[in-house]
């Protein structure tokens, strides 16, 4: 037989799962360290691609000057400067990612606590019904 209280609880939980809960449940499957490091890794990859694009644009922008001076400039110094710029960008971007994702993780965990409490309540409702 239908238990009204149980249906209401299940509906509320389903609405949560379909909206803000969807992402939170996914986040809840990870340990904190795993979640943050995974996203920092993704950020590093995105940052590397973005840096590559920007660097390519820079090279094309100054292509003629660069080609004219390619034998005159200190290539090692140029590469070092590029690497420093890349490193700086990745470190800053990684730090921002760390802050964003650690905030999101703690927020999701807080939100999930209530959801898990509802799950327990639902379980107890089932148990009561069976008895």
């Amino acid at each position, binding site marked *: 037989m*239908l238990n009204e209280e149980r*249906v209401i609880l*299940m*509906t509320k939980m*389903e*609405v949560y799962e*379909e909206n803000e809960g969807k992402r939170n449940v996914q986040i809840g499957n990870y340990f904190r360290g795993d979640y943050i490091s995974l996203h920092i890794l*993704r950020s590093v990859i*995105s*940052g590397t*691609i*973005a840096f590559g*694009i*920007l660097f*390519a*644009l820079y090279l*094309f*922008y100054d*292509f*003629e000057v660069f080609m004219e001076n390619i034998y005159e400039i200190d290539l090692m110094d140029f590469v070092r400067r590029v690497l420093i710029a890349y490193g700086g960008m990745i470190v800053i*971007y990684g730090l921002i*990612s760390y802050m*964003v994702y650690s905030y999101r993780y703690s927020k999701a965990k807080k939100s999930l606590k209530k959801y898990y409490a509802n799950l327990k309540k639902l379980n107890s409702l089932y148990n009561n019904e069976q008895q």
Partner: protein
Amino acid sequence: MSALLEFKEKLKVIYGRYDTYIISILKFLLTFLALNVINGNLGYMKQLDNLAIVLIVSLLCSFLPNGCIIFFAALFSLLHMYELSMEVALVGLCLYLVMALLYFRFSPKDSIVVLLTPLLCAANIPYVMPVAMGLLGTPASAVSVGCGIVVYNYLSNVAANAQVISAMEAEEAVAKLKLVLDALIHNNGMIVMIAAFAVTIIVVYLIRRLSVAYAWTIAIITGCIVDLLVLLVGDLKFDTKLSLVGAVLGTILAAAVAKVIEFFRFCVDYNRAEKVQFEDDEYYYYVKAIPKMTVAAQSKTVKKINMQRKSVTINSSVMDEERLEDIMEDVLEEDMEPEEYSEGQPYAEDEMYPEDQEEYADGQEYAEEDNYTEETYTEDEPYAENERGRSRKGRK
């Protein structure tokens, strides 16, 4: 004001019930508008500048996620640019990619701002954006709005230099690239606008979160003033050729739009009808959960009221008419001075309408009140009128 509040409540009910259709229609309109603006300003690829294609894509976007609107708008602009010059399209693609990789992977919901900002810029009312985002978003929205301004400036530069670009030979690829990038990098007006909007968003956001009365209104006004100030200072410093009249009028419009946003701010997202499906061991459930529409208690303004009342228990079995008149006179003589009730002042319902408990039968409790001088009931008016009428009638 009460009519507006009622309108808001009605709108909430309508939105809660038909939100699926309303959102689809809004998405359709936004896509249609965006694609038409792109076609109107860039329009180099004639195949795309076709109403049928625009309508089909708009219909498609009306039920696809928001990201698809951005995707199609970006695709249309890139294809138009490609028709003009591959290098220009390449730079455009690089811009979009960098934005997507660095920022919009964090907050995909904000990406709609990148579409709205250029649209408002094209309509010469970009000043609405920072105030609105300060009210509705977070300080991070400054990045979204900044990206939107960059996109608008890039596209408008391409449109402005289209003839020069198309006149260039195919071998002048680097020159084309340099032309469009120079126009973007050395655009002081754009940089000043990004700075002004970023400062405005942060100022509006910080003020509207303060726990002071009228925080939103103060935030709107301060934000508009700060926006104008930064734009003016930037204009003086970098000679950005800012149209003062346009900026002032745009800012006034921004304030008006912000007030509308303030009025409707809790209308959306809080009252959605939800359709959910789930199952347990015994049943499949297809539930449509419709939010309860609790009509907010509107403010009751009671300017003057005589609070004197006296409860007398009358036993009608021993009561005669003369006795009743004596009691009434006693009650009327003990009137106190009128008291002021300000708007929103809490009072108990039974104090207000003691007649609720009147019964004109044996052993009844009879409550007396007098001297209603001026009252304004906004919500319970018919009820109050009836009750008062009944009580006075009862006394006679």
